[in-house]
């Protein structure tokens, strides 16, 4: 079975699904001839032509709005926002129409589309290219938000997203676009949206993360294993709708938890997870749930980047604190 990077897995998902369903149309800036600024859509226009792989004008709100119209008309558009930060101009369309059309028309008109965007930091880029806005999206009713951390999951989840009858925002952690490789099967398969994954089982503490942070989380778990601590690692995978039962089952077993995300701290998605644990597993807790997060600051330029993102060390510290409580 071939080993694929995240980029290759996503590319493969698009390729396979476009072959299977001719309603699938890709659109975005520089995705056609250029193949995308991260080469995620490389080669697809050559295969499917400019009719199905559209290079659009520089207009994110336009791309999103047009995709809405295309989806209402019965197509399955997969629109790319070049970076998470440039998804923000499309927020009007996302919150005011994308998440509402089905409800507004009582099911008569729906928007089965996917908005893809690279997210997160760690690639030493100029300003604005390191955003993590999954919490804002999760707070928007009517859409689904997916954030894979592995190539296998990315392909399966993207195919699920394309097939989903509702709008899905598919966030791709750019830091690990090419940093990890994994066996990814050829052909079509799906990973269900709305299901978290227990990456490794453990008994002493649950560590919950998503996206690029899984790397730090897994390393921290490894470090703790050397100290005789059994860590259960969970990859959330779908931010919204969140798979609450998997998280609760784990916390009820271990009694302790740490949540890790690179997005800013206040009102980050970790807060929602802590609230859920509080509501459903309070009596199982032996310690408060800690969050290891980015800061309530603008994501810094490359020279300060390493201080912002949660490191393995910070995750380990949090784990130790929670264990020692």
């Amino acid at each position: 079975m071939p080993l694929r990077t995240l980029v290759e897995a996503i590319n493969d998902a698009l390729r396979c699904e476009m072959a299977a369903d001719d309603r699938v149309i890709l659109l975005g800036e520089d995705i056609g001839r250029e193949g995308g600024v991260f080469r995620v859509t490389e080669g697809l226009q050559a295969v499917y032509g400019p009719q199905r792989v559209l290079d659009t004008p520089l207009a994110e709100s336009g791309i999103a709005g047009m995709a809405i119209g295309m989806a209402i008309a019965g197509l399955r558009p997969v629109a790319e926002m070049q970076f998470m930060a440039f998804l923000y101009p499309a927020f009007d369309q996302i919150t005011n129409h994308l998440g509402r059309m089905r409800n507004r028309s009582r099911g008569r008109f729906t928007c089965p589309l996917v908005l893809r965007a690279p997210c997160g930091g760690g690639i030493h880029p100029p300003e604005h290219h390191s955003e993590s806005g999954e919490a804002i999206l999760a707070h928007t009713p009517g859409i689904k938000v997916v954030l894979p951390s592995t190539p296998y999951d990315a392909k399966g989840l993207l195919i699920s997203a394309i097939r989903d009858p509702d709008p899905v925002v598919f966030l791709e952690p750019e830091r690990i676009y090419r940093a990890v490789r994994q066996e990814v099967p050829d052909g079509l398969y799906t990973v269900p949206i709305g299901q978290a994954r227990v990456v490794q089982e453990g008994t002493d503490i649950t560590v919950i993360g998503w996206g690029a942070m899984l790397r730090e989380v897994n390393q921290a778990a490894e470090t703790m294993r050397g100290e005789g601590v059994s860590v259960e690692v969970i990859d959330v995978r779908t931010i919204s709708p969140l798979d609450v039962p998997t998280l609760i089952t784990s916390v009820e077993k271990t009694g302790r938890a740490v949540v890790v995300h690179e997005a800013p701290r206040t009102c980050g998605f970790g807060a929602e997870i802590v609230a859920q644990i509080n509501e459903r597993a309070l009596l199982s807790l032996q310690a408060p749930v800690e969050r290891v997060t980015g800061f309530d600051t603008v994501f810094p330029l490359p020279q300060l980047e390493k201080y912002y993102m949660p490191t393995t060390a910070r995750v380990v510290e949090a784990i130790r604190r929670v264990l020692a409580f």
Partner: protein
Amino acid sequence: MVLAFRFPDVGEGIHEGEIVRWLVHEGDSVRLDQPMVEVETDKAVVEIPAPQAGTIVRLAVREGETIQVGEVLVVIGETGAPAQPAALPPAPASVSVVGSLDIALTELPPAPEMARATPAVMPPARRVLAIPSVRKLARDLGVDLTMVTPTGPHGRIRREDVLQAAKPSQPQPQRASSTAPVSPPALEHGPVEYQPLSALRRTIARTMVTAATTAVPVTTTDEVDVTELVALRERSAEAAAVQQVHLTLLPFMMKAVVAALQQHPTLNASLDEAQQRLVLKRYYHLGIATDTPEGLIVPVVKTVDQKSLLTLASELAHLTELARTRRIALPDLQGGTFTISNYGAIGGIFATPMLLLPQVAILGVGKLLRKPVVYHEEIAVRTLLPLSLTFDHRALDGAEAQRFLNTVMTYLANPARLLLTL
């Protein structure tokens, strides 16, 4: 602006107080800092001054009533008549491009930022530290968490502590509360008189229960021949009287105790359960249990090792006087490292004095007895002093305690030896 002044924590974790006497009346004008009220808290009577100048609008608690920290004590208004609230303007027609606005005629109270006086700081209520599952266990078992001794880190109550407290051999009495307790059913078999427990009494009760249920008190007793010491005291009394100091045996006993403590430091210590350690004190503050009309009070004489017998005697007299008249200040009730209970002044031989936590030992002194004893191989009538040393067996063993007691007795029996330590 009108200030509803709340009863503050006037000394290191005080929770409540009893109003002894109001010094002002409703309608009086008060100056800033003018004394308003006397409140009894644990064992000290505290005077509370006015936090702002103005007119006393309302005394919120009556004399004899109990007030909790954080409750309103007194309401002080501005001097002069209060302003009339302005008439509300007529409601405008509902204006909105979409939807419809409710027009409310509610006037909100002024914003807190507008109050000129510093807002009263609400001290935190006494905190019991326990995680939710432990709290639930306590609830389910009917255990009062305030009566549970914590053994977890940072003073936290652990599950085991709750289970321990729930054991039937250690009944958990309810914490004395300021609200009226439920009256017992009328089971009297004759006329009765009700005597409400004073604040002091309630405090003593609380303290005793805690000591009885958490410490492991063991008492060892002995007698010491103090014939020579008594003679020494009598000889010195006259000289002391010249300085207007009434010299009793107690200062000598304090010196003997301190000398012994210096040689047996583990008895001059407190048990820190949270950190699982003995804290050996390198200072010597002796608490002297004192009987007062209201009950037992323990003033503390500081740095006994550094004071002369005369100074000690003088200070003792002063402190016990303050204690008896309930004028003693809180600092004089705190900081003790070892306690002496001279119940013998009233009567009694041997006893089992209660530990004053977190101290690990207390020495009870009974009454002097003229007794026939074997002295230099012959029967002689000597003056004997009964001693009862209670120690906390969690911190110490009997041998250690007895050795300490032996040292004390050596000094008491041989004043010349005691002199060498001064």
